[in-house]
């Protein structure tokens, strides 16, 4: 246990220490379709940029953002940022891919970034991709050990991107400790329909699920539905640590979330040595791209054995002795 913790702490310290302060002022712009306080997708990126800005000071990192940008509106905002001399323009969402690829030719000296996406972009475009199968796996280990009914529900948005990776990693994590578990994966077809996510969670619970999980901002709707079963042993595993600080947190056993700060720092660092893009930056436990937290307030459901199994999985993933082969998984 101590060894595992020591490895984790060392890696986290290393992850934070890899990047140095920018040599000159960097201007960063963020474009998002949601808002910077959505307690999910948009906020995670915003918080990371603010954290980097706080770390190096406003004199070295200037930051502006544009919210509620549909892909059709985002072009105008991105052009303005590029024309005003912003160094790094991040369009946070795979839906901005075409726009960014188009703008990258128009403004070859500007660094653009979009994600989540595993493709390698042109020479002035970074992409970033959370290896969400890692967080999914750990949550899956916990779910597989917590379930009493043997039925586990996954509330998915669409079967693509990091959500697909998370769900498949979760599936593998459950099966690693509970091969007989029935994992019910379903999708709402939307990233932001909170009501439909709640409806899907209710459907899962009616079908016998006693542990649920879900990704994307809509997941709050599913967690809200789980919280309706106040006195019943129905639990939630989060893909967003902010869920540990909301009133529904009494149902959240543990939660992982993205920390985009290493991605931001990597982009700043690479740009300052002349690499404007052309790389995919992965987010992993190893490079500090994920945060994982238990909820100590849930009581006896989170046993020492579960913590031990989840900690071991996290240590093995971080040390890369556990490879998660998520792609062949078929629900």
């Amino acid at each position: 246990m101590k060894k595992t913790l020591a490895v984790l702490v060392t890696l986290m310290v290393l992850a934070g220490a890899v990047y140095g302060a920018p040599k000159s002022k960097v201007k960063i712009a963020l474009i998002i379709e949601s808002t910077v306080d959505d307690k999910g997708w948009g906020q995670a990126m915003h918080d990371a940029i603010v954290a980097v800005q706080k770390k190096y000071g406003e004199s070295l990192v200037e930051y502006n953002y544009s919210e509620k940008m549909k892909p059709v509106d985002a072009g105008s905002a991105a052009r303005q940022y590029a024309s005003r001399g912003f160094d790094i323009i991040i369009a946070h969402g795979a839906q901005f891919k075409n726009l960014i690829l188009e703008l990258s030719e128009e403004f070859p000296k500007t660094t653009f970034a979009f994600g989540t996406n595993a493709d390698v972009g042109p020479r002035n475009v970074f992409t970033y991709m959370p290896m969400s199968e890692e967080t999914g796996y750990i949550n899956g280990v916990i779910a597989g050990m917590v379930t009493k009914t043997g039925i586990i529900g996954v509330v998915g948005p669409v079967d693509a991107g990091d959500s697909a990776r998370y769900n498949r990693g979760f599936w593998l994590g459950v099966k690693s400790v509970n091969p007989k578990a029935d994992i019910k994966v379903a999708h709402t077809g939307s990233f932001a329909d909170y009501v439909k996510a709640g409806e899907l969670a209710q459907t899962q619970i009616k079908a016998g699920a006693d542990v649920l999980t879900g990704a994307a901002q809509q997941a709050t709707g599913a967690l809200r539905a789980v919280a309706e079963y106040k006195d019943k042993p129905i639990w939630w595993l989060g893909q967003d640590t902010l869920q540990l600080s909301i009133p529904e947190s009494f149902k959240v056993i543990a939660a992982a979330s993205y920390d985009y700060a290493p991605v931001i720092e990597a982009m700043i660092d690479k740009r300052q040595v002349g690499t404007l893009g052309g790389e995919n930056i992965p987010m992993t436990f190893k490079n500090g791209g994920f945060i994982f937290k238990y909820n100590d307030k849930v009581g006896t459901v989170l046993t020492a054995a579960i913590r031990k199994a989840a900690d071991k999985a996290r240590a093995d993933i971080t040390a890369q002795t556990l490879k998660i082969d998520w792609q062949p998984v078929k629900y």
Partner: protein
Amino acid sequence: MNGGSFVLNILILGVPFSVALLLAGLGETINQRAGVFNLGCEGIMAMGAFVAFLPPYFLAGTSLAGSANLIGLALAMVVGTVLGLLFALVVVTFRAPQGIAGIGLQMLGWGIAGTLFRHYVGGVTGVPGIAPMPIPVLSKIPVLGQVLFNHNPLVYIAFLLVPVFWYILFKTPWGLKVRAVGTYPRAADSLGIRVARVRYQALALGGAMAGLAGAYLSLAQAKMFADDLVAGRGFIAVALVYFGRWHPVGVMLGALLFSLAQALQLSIQVAGIDFPYEFAVMLPYVLVIVVLALVRKARMVGPTELGKPFDREQRV
């Protein structure tokens, strides 16, 4: 899960899913019967959802917490009425094109709700909301009890409003006036019916119902508020009025059909039935389009002057 419980779960889930559509659809039926279609229903629902959410959020822990949901519902109806009257001002008095004005109202409601939410509340937040209220004795009836009598009070109210709206529309003098101004406003005008006044009244009632539908989403179904909580349900409600052929019972059947299809597609996915989820999520919408196409061929009983502004000075 066996076949019986599969079907039962669809019914149990489908009934409460239908309520927001039903409440908004009933209001929109009155609007359209009076000759005005209100595409702004979505925006009014967003405002209704937002203002209904505020009392439970801000009054939590105070002596008024027990009444917060009721205050929220009343507030949603008042705000819905005001927005309905605003829409009436634009399309009845100023005779603006109803489609464009409706889209404007939708954007206005969505924008105001989102902006005020961020300013006064912040991020996505839950509220205790309206608790289920099983009907004594009736809720114990096998199958039927679970499907019909084990819900929150708004579910019962919504379904009880169907005969009330039918009665208002087809058995009261005011209902006759509403139908008259939507079918042949010039004749109604010549008989002394004040077309503009009746349309104002209809849009006020329609707005109140849309506000209530939004309140149902934030207080009874999701028990939270978030930007874009309504997510297109206002537009579906407008379509369901055509689907239901401008009749409260037809609208109820449409809302139930859509919601049961929604519960069915979710249950198909959860049951692990080998069916692409992309097609499953489309199922309710495809169903509505197919039935709308079929209804189009059926005898039209709708308001013939729907969408047309009335100008009593205009020569015909």
